[in-house]
């Protein structure tokens, strides 16, 4: 056996495997005796660390695997475009409606927004900003949604009642989208 070639084979195997490779699997495929193989792997781990490679060899439950060094996570994050923290506009609108109209059903949200809200709801549920708070006692007993503790925490509120009053806000905000309309239309 040629040590260099065997190291290459082990490296290639670790490289393509998405999961940790048990020592036995590596031994079986390469034909290297387990004890010798463990030594070889230890040597490789040291070598990677010494050469400051982008990855390292780690032994985890179930075997050996190559993983990127944690210090490069920010680069990888940029590459894989980890979903941005921000919510989409649709999700934010849905969240705003839920915050002010809770408990509220999907249908009620859709009536305000004029479009389906399934996706926004799934998104917000997934992010733990809203939750199901019960069922409305009408036909079909639709789910009622409300905001979560996490939502309140983000805005530094103790309870939903602390949300600013709608009318106050509109006076303050002065977004003249429909300046010709009376502010009154928000009272409904």
């Amino acid at each position: 056996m040629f040590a260099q070639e065997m190291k290459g084979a082990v490296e290639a195997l670790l490289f393509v495997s998405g999961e940790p490779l048990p020592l036995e699997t590596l031994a079986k495929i390469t034909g290297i005796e387990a004890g010798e193989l463990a030594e070889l792997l230890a040597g490789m781990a040291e070598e990677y660390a010494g050469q400051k490679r982008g990855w390292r060899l780690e032994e985890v439950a179930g075997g050996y695997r190559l993983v990127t060094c944690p210090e490069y996570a920010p680069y990888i994050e940029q590459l894989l475009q980890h979903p941005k923290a921000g919510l989409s506009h649709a999700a934010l609108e849905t969240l705003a409606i839920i915050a002010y109209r809770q408990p509220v059903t999907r249908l009620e949200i859709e009536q305000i927004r004029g479009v389906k809200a399934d996706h926004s709801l799934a998104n917000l549920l997934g992010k733990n900003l809203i939750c199901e708070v019960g069922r409305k006692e009408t036909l079909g007993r639709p789910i009622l949604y409300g905001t979560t503790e996490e939502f309140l925490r983000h805005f530094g509120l103790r309870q939903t009642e602390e949300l600013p009053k709608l009318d106050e806000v509109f006076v303050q905000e002065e977004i003249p989208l429909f300046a010709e309309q009376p502010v009154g239309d928000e009272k409904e």
Partner: protein
Amino acid sequence: MAYQVNLPVFEGPFDLLYHLIEKHEVDIYDIPIAQIAEEYLAYLRQMDELDLEVASSFVVMAAQLLSIKARMLLPAPTMEGDSGGEPEPVDPRAELVERLLEYRKFKAVAEVLKAQEGIAAQVYPRVVDPASLAHLFREVNPLEGVMMGDLLAALQKALRRQRRDEMVADVPREEVSVQQRMNEVLANLQQTPAEPAPLERFFTGNHYRDELIVTFLALLELVRLRRIRLLQRETLGAIYVLLRE
């Protein structure tokens, strides 16, 4: 007819013709049509097991060969040459030869590709599951950067839109075609080609059901055409749209 095993498989009539020309080591520019046509037909008679579509193309070629054979028996017609020029006889085989030569080029390229494929198959890239890297990333706050004012502005906008939809009764809808919408989606994605865009981005501003349907159809069509990909990292998680290269 004798049952024959191991009948060579040919990709099409040209492939078979080649085989025959090669087998007899004849000059491609001077194909002994009678002989080749006969062998071609002999082969055809043996291949009654082929599917109809492929078989029909072989039959078409057989007819062509017979037609050429017949024309070769007739006195050669002449092409109208330039005034005073020697009129050139037209070889009935000319068109066939040209097509055979053309086909041969691609047959050869297919061999090159096959060899190249064999080489490329020896190397393996890593198969990476993005979910397995999630642990590397910072914990994200989905509301990062969102202020109370943003929340209220969003609500205000939704309410105003609702109001507007109720008030204005007869606004003719803007007709957007699927193709138009596809272009818009692509243009939007191309602004940041490497960045997966949240699916909802393409539905915001779609106020009417048919607009939503058009958007949805456009996205489906783009997926079918392999221009975009849809990604969802977890059940009920956000769906992202990614430009395919």
